[in-house]
């Protein structure tokens, strides 16, 4: 079976005074109907990788790839019409910061219902929207429906956005730190929803996170990014077999409830990791 998504040698550059700077430097992977985690520290290029797949690289940047294919469609040459059919309906992204991806002048309810309608569910739009808000553990869905994005807390906004992505039931969901603003117990509930979409509906999920512990317990496979490159790819159940010193460093520097290493091992960076 051919993969849902293939990425080969993805490169993203931004201009700077010293000339173009590559922030993603030759990332390759393929994705089936599975949970793929991308971890790495801030600035390592996770978000830009996710955005490039959806053709959402900022205008100042340039993304190139030897291959960028979603379900047989070459995304590098996709027309506006093709993108319109793909984005939202078949490929979706939950952004790290809901402030930038919810429409500030439209109530959550209207945005949700429009997303449902786009997916061809006119009559049940209201009920389905409420159901989705309940699914992401929003206790007061009617109030949230009537609210504008700025009236919601970070965690609420993020949940509303996840609900928005889920109503369209995409084939590929790129979730960029979708649970970072949420409390741990709610975070687990949201992951359960995503998990069900993968196992029951065969969705492909790219789960971007800085939280190695969460990713290793949730995903099937993990890409570890450092300075724009994938330095290691691992089976999530075999995180403790990681060999790259960066991955090992990341694993070891986390405090644990049961452990008692003091001081915590810190990460000693090596310029060789940049090569």
């Amino acid at each position, binding site marked *: 079976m051919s993969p849902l998504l293939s990425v080969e040698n993805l490169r993203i550059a931004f201009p700077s005074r010293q000339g173009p700077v590559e922030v993603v430097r030759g990332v390759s992977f393929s994705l089936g109907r599975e949970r793929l985690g991308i971890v790495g520290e801030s600035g390592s290029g996770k978000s830009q990788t996710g955005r490039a797949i959806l053709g959402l690289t900022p205008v100042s940047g340039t993304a190139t790839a030897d291959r960028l294919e979603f379900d047989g469609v070459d995304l590098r040459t996709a027309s506006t019409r093709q993108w319109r059919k793909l984005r939202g309906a078949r490929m979706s992204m939950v952004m790290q910061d809901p402030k930038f991806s919810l429409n500030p002048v439209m109530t959550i309810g209207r945005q949700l219902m429009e997303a449902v309608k786009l997916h061809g569910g006119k009559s049940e739009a209201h009920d389905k929207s409420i159901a989705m808000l309940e699914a992401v553990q929003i206790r007061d869905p009617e109030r949230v429906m009537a609210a504008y994005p700025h009236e919601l807390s970070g965690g609420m906004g993020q949940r509303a956005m996840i609900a928005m992505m889920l109503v369209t039931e995409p084939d590929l969901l790129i979730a960029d730190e979708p649970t970072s603003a949420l409390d*741990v*117990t709610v975070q687990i509930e949201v992951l359960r929803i995503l*998990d069900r979409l993968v196992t029951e509906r065969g969705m492909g999920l790219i789960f971007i996170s800085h939280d190695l512990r969460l990713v290793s*317990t949730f995903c099937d496979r993990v890409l570890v990014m450092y300075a724009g490159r994938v330095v290691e790819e691992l089976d999530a159940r075999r995180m403790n077999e990681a060999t790259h010193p960066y991955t090992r460093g990341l694993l070891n520097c986390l405090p644990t*409830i*049961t452990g008692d290493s003091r001081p915590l091992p*810190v*990460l000693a960076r090596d310029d060789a990791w940049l090569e």
Partner: protein
Amino acid sequence: MAFIDIEDLEVTFEGSGRQVRALKGVSLAVGEEESFGIVGESGSGKSTVLRALCGLAPVTSGRISIGGEPVQAPRDPAFYRRVQMVFQDPYASLHPRHTVDRVLSEPLAIHGFDRAEERVEQALEDVGLGAGFRFRYPHQLSGGQRQRVAIARALILEPKIILLDEPTSALDASIQAEVLNLLDRLRAERGLTYVLVSHDLAVVSHMCDRLVVMQGGEVVEQLTREALQAHATTEDYTRNLLTASEGFTRDPALQR
């Protein structure tokens, strides 16, 4: 009597015709040179406890004393020489147009400390930055470096108590480890007392000898680190928090 003693603290915020009872009778006692943790989910009232200690929350009833003496309202300068606070967001807590030097010199001037230059350089040394950082602006610093500056600012008045509100929540894991190690070392060297607030149970367990779990403005349970490590909790809420903190567990029915 404990070093920091909080009894039956009630805080109610009023705004736009709505009342929020943020603290509903919170009591806790922190020993001298102890590192004490407060965990709980967002909105549970953790920051409000710290703010109330500093006189920055509308306390409606209850008592706060430090070193056996009730705190003065409003807090006097002597209070801030003893108690300092470090906030979560290193981006918001430093003035964007003030150099590190100014950030660190101002409290010294306000409190009439001598040898300002020497103290600033020493404080930067103490947090592992070095004097080379003195004339930098916040935008020239990484998140971890900013948090070190915030810690240096808290230390410069030589306080006995530092209130830490999610001090590493905005930092990458590797930087978090460095900042936690720094805080650990400083406490040991100077005999500081910490009250550390975090939503991250692992951070609190690593840093604190004892902790309370808060929910909805109340303390639901108090535990020692050992009890937490042994999962010796009597409250379902704490147990849920503990389970969730250990990562995702797949519903066996959904295993492929």
